């Protein structure tokens, strides 16, 4: 179970990403963060905290649950429906630059669902994508704007992101799947 990112490495990556967001958008005016549930939400909050302390302004932050937009819902072999959780976007996304935050970018299907879900809330000026780990194997034409770490993987492996807020520890591991 090799650890590819430890707590320090995750913290440094998120700080760097926060600065890249500031640079890329010439400040944070009109920028809002939306984390994809589950682990994108604490990541978005951490980036928002860094953005807030650097710029002195609070960045609106929301949480997006993409379950109802998944493309595999009705295709999976008989199995339980994934748990639906609440989407909380307490601000208008119209004409804002929305920075979508997720933990792992893999096939791109979650991001596709997140884009559809987000667009149902309004018409953002632009959508940018942050991921902590890009593990490759894209199945859709989707690319992240900000990446914590590129981790080459095989499809037989699974990338686990654990975060303090949910799992009690900060680490990214690559695990073999049978």
């Amino acid at each position, binding site marked *: 179970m090799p650890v590819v990112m430890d707590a320090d490495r995750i913290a440094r990556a998120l700080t760097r990403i926060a600065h890249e967001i500031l640079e890329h958008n010439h400040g944070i005016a009109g920028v809002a963060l939306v984390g994809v549930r589950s682990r994108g939400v604490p990541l978005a909050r951490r980036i928002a905290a860094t953005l807030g302390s650097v710029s002195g302004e609070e960045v609106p932050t929301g949480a997006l649950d993409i379950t109802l937009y998944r493309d595999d819902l009705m295709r999976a072999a008989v199995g*339980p429906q994934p748990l639906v959780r609440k989407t909380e976007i307490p601000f208008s996304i119209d004409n804002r630059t929305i920075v979508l935050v997720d933990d792992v970018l893999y096939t791109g299907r979650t991001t596709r669902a997140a884009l559809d879900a987000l667009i149902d809330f309004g018409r953002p000026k632009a959508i940018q994508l942050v991921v902590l780990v890009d593990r490759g194997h894209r199945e859709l034409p989707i690319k992240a704007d900000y990446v914590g770490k590129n981790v080459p993987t095989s499809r037989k492996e699974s990338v686990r992101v654990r975060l303090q807020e949910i799992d009690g520890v900060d680490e990214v591991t690559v695990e073999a799947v049978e």
Partner: protein
Amino acid sequence: MDAVAAAAALSQKNLLGIADLSPEEIVLILDTAEAMKEVGRRAIKKVPTLRGRTVVNLFFEPSTRTRTSFEIAEKRLSADTLNVAIGTSSVVKGETLVDTAMNIEAMSPSMIVLRHGSSGACHLLARICKAAIINAGDGMHEHPTQALLDAFTIRERKGRIGGLKVAIFGDLLHSRVLRSNLLLLTKLGAEVWVCGPATLIPPGLARLGVRVTTRVDEAVEGADVVMMLRIQLERMEGGYFPSLREYFTTFGMTEARLKRARPDVIIMHPGPINRGVEIASEVADGPFSVILDQVSNGVAVRMAVLYLLAGGAEDETVA
């Protein structure tokens, strides 16, 4: 929130009654409904979840609230919906329930929402249909989605269900809403009191784990939730009480009677309400009333049920 943790999934493909649900499954439906409620607050109140699924609303009894609520829930999940009302269907030509169902089934719907005057009609359909069956009220048996939306409303207002005193008043004999509510509320640990005229109390009611009384004051005393049932005027030919006026005088919920309840009591009613029969207008429209919240929450709860029952591939939804 209650101590009961949500189940990972529903164990059955149909929703025939609260009797079949575990406390954990009930909590799963209520938790899912919270997420669904958020969809109803958006500018675009629609998600693509049930695209390509067909849901038939088969209503053999008149209904405004339940049918509309199911239809809105289905549309918000992007299902294709189809309403069959008896007045315009082949039932008036003498077709039986089974024949009607088999013909609808032949058009491969994913789900059938059934309201029928006979208790157990849903169970009959569940045995012969591949489609998932959702009970929208069967005779005097159960009305599970009503009990679920009532529970959702209580939990939203009180933060929990376990340990609350819930007092239910009215026609305890014919009410399917009562039956489903008793099953649900006792499963989640509420202290349930029921009250009505002796002629409308079925024997053995106390065996369901509830306190039975004919004295309104005793039931209202310290109640967190007061739930009024409709006096079903169409079922009152049996001379259960002398007159509607007398019923109101003895059992009607008035502001004066409510003074014995807790100061933060909520008043519920599944509708349609008979003003001046089971409930005074000042109470129905008063500050404690959550009657219209129940109606809004009904859509979210039905979305949750539709979503949770839609799992698995289309071809494999056979039981």
